[in-house]
């Protein structure tokens, strides 16, 4: 049985400016024990899909199950098997960390959960914050509490909706160690959405890419990477690129990256730059990574640039 199964899921939002179709017949399954990545540019429908899985939204058509339990008709069983870390940094200001975790356990009908709560606090580096009020915690600490809250009922399926957005490098490491630990030690299934493609590359065994509400790729991470057989020419410049190069370049501030299949292609690119009088420095050639595949699949370079900026921000 699949850990999570999306079957022809569509979602249309009615707005004052007409209908907006956020998801178009999305279908894929996630097997138990997988570390699965859900990628896509902003507005691709990732959060909508997660919301439907979590019961925060209902599909216009189609069906979603968690370990065989329909998230609509059998929502109680489905939600018992699901731990969701929401994207927004939300908290209840009335309680301290331990109270919040005890209350969350209670909603699932679990009493005397302190052993597991202590383990979660220790694993997430929160032990000394147990009696701190939620209001006093920094953003990163609140993020850790959100993760602990999602795990109080030991769900076999864990969903992380962009959990590392705006989180510093050290905390990101802690989080990934902890979540990979759950995946490896307890065999938890993990569904992750992220903008940090290097993260998806390092953690996820399989990846689905969404674009405008549709699945555009569904493959193992390694075969996705194999698609990008080409190399990338990377350099810095202050000059303006010739328009035909700018169209295919990935530009982040001074850094320019251009797809280059082989040595001859690299030479052609450099010659064209010289011809246009563009002064370049720090030239390097690297292997294409998941991000190149991602940009290739999810479309235009102009749409890709904001994503690149977010990644490096």
């Amino acid at each position, binding site marked *: 049985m699949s850990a999570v199964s999306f079957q022809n899921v569509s979602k249309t*939002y009615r707005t004052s400016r007409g209908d907006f179709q956020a998801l178009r017949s999305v279908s894929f399954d996630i097997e138990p024990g997988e570390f699965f990545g859900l990628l896509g540019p902003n507005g691709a429908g990732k959060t909508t899909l997660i*919301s439907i899985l*979590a*019961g*925060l*939204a*209902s599909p216009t058509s189609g069906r979603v199950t968690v370990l065989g339990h329909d998230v609509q008709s059998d*929502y*109680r*069983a489905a*939600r*018992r098997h*699901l731990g*969701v870390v*929401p994207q*927004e940094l*939300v*908290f*209840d*200001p*009335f*309680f301290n960390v331990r109270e919040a975790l005890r*209350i*969350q*356990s*209670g*909603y*699932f*009908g679990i*009493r005397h959960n302190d052993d597991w709560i202590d383990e979660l606090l220790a694993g997430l580096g929160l032990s000394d914050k147990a009696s701190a009020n939620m209001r006093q915690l920094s953003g990163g600490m609140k993020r850790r509490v959100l993760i602990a*809250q*999602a795990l109080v009922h030991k769900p076999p399926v864990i969903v992380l909706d962009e959990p590392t957005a705006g989180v510093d490098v050290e905390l990101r490491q802690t989080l990934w160690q902890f979540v990979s630990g759950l995946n490896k030690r307890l065999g938890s299934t993990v569904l992750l959405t992220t903008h940090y493609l290097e993260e998806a590359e390092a953690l996820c065994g399989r990846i689905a890419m969404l674009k405008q509400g549709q699945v555009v790729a569904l493959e193992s991470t390694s075969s996705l990477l194999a698609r990008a057989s080409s190399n990338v020419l990377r350099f810095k410049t202050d000059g303006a690129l010739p328009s035909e190069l700018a169209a295919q370049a990935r530009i982040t501030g001074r850094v320019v990256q251009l797809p280059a299949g082989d040595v001859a292609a690299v030479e052609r690119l450099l010659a064209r730059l010289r011809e246009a009088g563009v002064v370049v420095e720090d030239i390097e050639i690297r292997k294409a990574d998941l991000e190149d595949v991602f940009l290739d699949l999810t479309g235009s370079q102009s749409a890709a640039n904001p994503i690149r900026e977010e990644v490096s921000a």
Partner: protein
Amino acid sequence: MSGWQTLFYKEVLRFWKVAFQTVAAPIVTALLYLMIFGHVLEDRVQVYDSVNYTAFLLPGLVMMSVLQNAFANSSSSLIQSKIMGNIVFLLLTPLSHRAWFVAYVGSSIVRGLVVGTGVMAVAWWFAKPSLVAPLWILVFAFMGAALLGALGLIAGLWAEKFDQMAAFQNFLIMPMTFLSGVFYSIHSLPAFWQQVSHLNPFFYMIDGFRYGFFGQSDVSPWVSLGLVGAALAVVSGIALHLLKIGYKIRH
């Protein structure tokens, strides 16, 4: 402990942690009304035959406090959770719409009764109304708090901003409580306004509640009980339905 008990406990804890604002403040407000109106109107307003005005006023103020605080509890808790976004912690749980209803309305009843008891206890120094039929007092306090708790739930689901919530409270709840006979017997009103008062469900809650103290009322307590019970059933039905479809909380 099942899920609804935790939510109920959390909702009680929520107002208890800020009891100065949620319990002490409304008690002080009710006492000010009692002292000022009681003092000014004591010799001017005639109600029933043998009851002095301050004693008459006391049950009305107690019930008004019960109703307003029951409403404030569920409505403010919900709108705060919606605006803060932490309602998601509840939405992700297996709690059913019935569990939500019982917990939110139950905690509203608790707050209403705690405040009501507080007003009563402190006001006892100023006026000692009789206690002819205590069971009626309890029944009406409980049902009134439940009705307003359920109404607060609906308002909390419906309102998207504090502004809308304030409108609900100031243009609906406040006028209906003030015009329900808290401060006067409707028999002192002109015939037309007596008729209008009979359309106000809040009137029956206060009238029935007052019957428990004096054994006298504007209408029979059984009529009040029937009407309040019917209103409670309708409002609860609506609240349960809205929770079930996830009105404005699930998309």
